[in-house]
């Protein structure tokens, strides 16, 4: 494995831990978006650009957006 791949793995572990450690849901959602981006970089470093493209869009845009909308709905109904 080369340095880029080690860096990507380390960044993924770091970002994942940060997501778990943040307890406030809205901040956590934004952090999970960053995690999706880092995961995309990981896939790219491991020569899977096709998967990286999906992961960047789904992980850093689609998923956080849907979680935020769900959070807004929960707050409204409370």
């Amino acid at each position, binding site marked *: *494995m080369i340095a880029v791949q080690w860096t990507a793995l380390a960044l993924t572990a770091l970002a994942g831990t940060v997501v778990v450690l943040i307890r406030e849901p809205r901040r956590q959602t934004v952090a999970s978006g960053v995690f999706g981006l880092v995961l995309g970089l990981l896939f790219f470093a491991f020569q899977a*650009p*096709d998967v*990286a*493209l*999906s992961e960047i*869009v*789904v992980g850093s*845009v*689609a998923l956080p*957006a*849907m979680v935020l*909308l*769900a959070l*807004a*709905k929960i707050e*409204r*109904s409370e």
Partner: protein
Amino acid sequence: MTRRVRLALFLASAVGLAVVLGFALAGLPGFDADLGRYASFVASHAVSQRRGTNSVVDVAFDYRAIDTLAEELMIFVAAVGAAVLLAHARDESDEGQAADLEALRAPSTSDLLRTFGPGLAAVAIVLGVYIVTHGHLSPGGGFQGGVILSTALVLVFVAGRTLAAARTRPLAPLEVAEAVGAAGFALIGLGGLVFASVFFENFLPLGTKGSLLSAGTIPLSNVAVGIEVAGAFALVFAELVDQMVLGRGGDT
């Protein structure tokens, strides 16, 4: 269940999982192991057989297109299910309510978002169309491009005044796009059955390797899946925005 029973149950299952998972992980091939037989065959033959230079897409939309059909129908059903559940409480009188709410919420986005959002949406559309149509040539394909296309809608929602976008939300066209894309991909499979007697056989001329119109049915499948995925993601997102902005279904 008491706390002790739950703890015992958890410990038993955790040990079981650790044993099974450890057994499975120990049997994985090493990081630099040789390719399997299927992978070696595809890596050396896909491009010359199908003339699509992205062998990942050659596999996903030709050799194993039937798997992709199942995955695509999964997204289709998931989006339809979400739409049906969320649209349950819809009501025509909400249009008037929407106008009132719009006045209340008008200044909710910053100038920066309003200025750059539409521009970024245009970029997302161009990039999405490129990724879909060049799926057989470079990394990408119908799913990736479709998701990028649906983010254009997300950008419009985020950038514009949320409610203005919500009132013109294109739910009906999105449903049509989703259905047409899913049906189109299945029809391409049936085309293989009709013209080459095998479901999802590549029945169109393969063309020259590397040109935009090559690889037979693969670009067509990419376009169909791209439309379907863009429609499905955008539909779920639009329904959720609908719920949030108008507060519909909150009391049901």
